């Protein structure tokens, strides 16, 4: 019956919900009908168009009024995010930061984030948190400590001959940025009689990219698998100020403990 483009109309049998007509056929009929204006449609459709207009107007007005300036910070539907203050404050603070040396900045970060476990003395807590002062990991190459700070560490660990059973260190990659991790590592490697060289944000950034795929924290075997003297790629000169650190320097000779 495909060859017949307009199948015949069947009887409407009132209540019969049997097979009087295929809806498809009915619909073919309505397609033909729509070309000629049907009486009684026009006034209604005018009302309908008015309703469309009303809905569009009201919806648009609503969106305009409560848009919160279409910004991601505009939590308040009437707008009013305080952004001017933020940029000013950030600028002022940035200059302030530049005055401090990396190790000084690192000290602040350490006291805020690390001292709870490792203590300001760098001695840790016997049996629970390993010491940093004199630690072979801290004083070795830059790669091992940077790995641990970025991804955290879990499980048993032996430092300076002491055994630490259940120590867990959280990953800091989400909390601290490259600059801050570099600063705090620089501080740790030069404080308490430690003899490590400085770490630059570029090195951390490179390592972060290298380890981007890893989700888990390290365990002791992971760390031991890395040579003790392994350095991070693209090391910068010792004590370099942040703005000088962009120039690539030859890897610093690994300081031995």
């Amino acid at each position: 019956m495909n060859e017949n483009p307009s199948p015949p109309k069947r009887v409407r049998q009132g209540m019969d919900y049997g097979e009087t007509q295929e809806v498809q056929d009915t619909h073919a009929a309505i397609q033909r009908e729509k070309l000629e204006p049907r009486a009684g449609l026009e006034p209604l459709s005018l009302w309908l168009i008015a309703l469309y207009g009303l809905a569009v107007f009201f919806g648009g007005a609503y969106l305009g009024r409560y848009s919160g300036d279409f910004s991601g910070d505009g939590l308040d539907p009437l707008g009013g995010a305080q952004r001017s203050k933020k940029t000013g404050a950030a600028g002022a603070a940035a200059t302030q930061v530049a005055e401090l040396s990396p190790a000084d900045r690192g000290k602040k970060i350490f006291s805020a984030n690390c001292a709870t476990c490792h203590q300001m003395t760098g001695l840790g807590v016997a049996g629970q948190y390993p010491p940093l002062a004199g630690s072979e990991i801290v004083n070795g190459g830059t790669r091992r400590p940077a790995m641990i700070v970025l991804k955290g560490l879990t499980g048993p660990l032996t430092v300076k001959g002491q055994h630490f059973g259940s120590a867990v260190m959280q990953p800091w990659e989400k909390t601290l940025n490259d600059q801050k991790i570099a600063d705090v590592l620089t501080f740790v490697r030069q404080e308490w009689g430690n003899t490590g060289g400085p770490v630059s944000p570029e090195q951390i950034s490179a390592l972060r990219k290298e380890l981007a795929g890893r989700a888990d924290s390290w365990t002791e075997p992971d760390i031991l698998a890395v040579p003790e003297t392994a350095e991070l790629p693209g090391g910068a000169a010792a004590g370099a100020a942040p703005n000088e650190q962009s120039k690539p320097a030859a890897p610093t000779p690994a300081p031995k403990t």
Partner: protein
Amino acid sequence: MESMTTTGTATSRPPEAQRSSEQVTQTEIENVERALIDASTRVPVLMFYTSAIVWLLLGTLLAGFASFKLHSPDMFSGISFLTFGRVRAAHMNMMVYGWASMAGMGTAIWLMARLCRTTLRHPLLLVTGAAFWNFGVLLGVGGILAGDSTGYEWFEFPAYAGVVIFVAYLLVMSWAVLMFRFRRGDTIYITQWYLLAAFLWFPWMYGATQVMLFVVPVQGVMQAVVSWWYANNLMFLWLGSIGLGTVYYMIPKVIGRPVYSYNLATIGFWTYALFASWTGMQRLIDGPFPAWMITASIAATILCIIPVATVGLNHHMTMRGYFPLMRYSPTLRFTVFGAISYTAFSIVGVIISLRSMARIVQFTQVSVAYSHLGLYAFFTMVMFGSMYYIVPRLVGCEWRYASLIKLHFWSSAYGVGLMVLMLLVGGLVQGLSMNDATLSFTESTQSVLPYLRGRSLSGVLLTASHFIFAFHFGLMLLGLGRTASVPTFLNPVEPEDVHP
């Protein structure tokens, strides 16, 4: 039963349709064709329906349990899988994925086959799909009860169940594409737009949500955005599209009259696709989100008045003069009830999402009322209607008892009406007392308890209605329906009504 309709005289024949004397033979050919189509869909559609009804009964029992838990919280507190939070999630997912989606797919398969005028190829594909889907829902509900829920509303199924459901869905969808490929006739009817859209939208939103929540999870509050975007689209674009498509088929089909206006249908469809997909974020109103995103959804909700009014008007004008038929036809009665509820659902949606109102009703039972208005009063009722129409054609006999159909209709209608009313009023009271900081917080939860008891009562009605329907459906499955040349009318037919 296909032959029972070959008598009668044409009353509304358009001029072009005045054709040759081959007309009768033509009709007979069509009838044979339809009979073949129905026969080819029998096994998969009945399988989808049977599974859906089993899930409906289980979901109803869980709902009753959860409802009673709200005012008797110490019941079974020692049993982990009967705690309120797990039972509620299990109920909701069973209803959405077990009942609504399976019933919707069953109806969609039959409608598609009829409208594409082609027999169902590879029914085994669909049977496998249904089996996998059942397995996925079972796995998901089991996972929720065992304490594996993901915590995203409407998406609680653990990821492993989600994968099974997705595979099942691909089987069903590959069939739908196949069907479209082999369709005959060059017009695509309105129902087919909605069904095709639903079948294409679902895998996109389901897949995208799985990816954005579990595979590459988005950060923080964006997860809430993704999950509510999904929940809303599941309601509007998946279930809503199937429901509207079914209404577009059933009303003109039963009364035997063309749909009022093709133009209205086109406008209704495209504005629906455009605006309904933008709603959803209003459920996160005043939360930690950019205000523009919420407001955009509220504006889209307001704009949804356009498709709702258009579709509603189209159905109304189609029905005009034929409303008395609702006295007789179960299909029409359920379908029209559903279509009217859809309008009510949308209007309530607009009212509760306006910021001034949302401030009061956010975090109250009103959102539960809203969900039931959409999922039950609209979608479920339309599905019942389509089952009353389709099942006799599949099993070859008529519904046994008109009285059971009537009982089913009235207990469903009163049940859902009472539930929605109770939860709307209760939620409003709850919100008003919650926002009054001089009242203690427990007063706001205490104030809603009487309404929750009323809701439990409505649950009893709905439970009764579902068991009646399942019993009746079971009779049909067993071939215990009536063998007659006329369908089962709700009331004795009076001649002047039958031929309006």
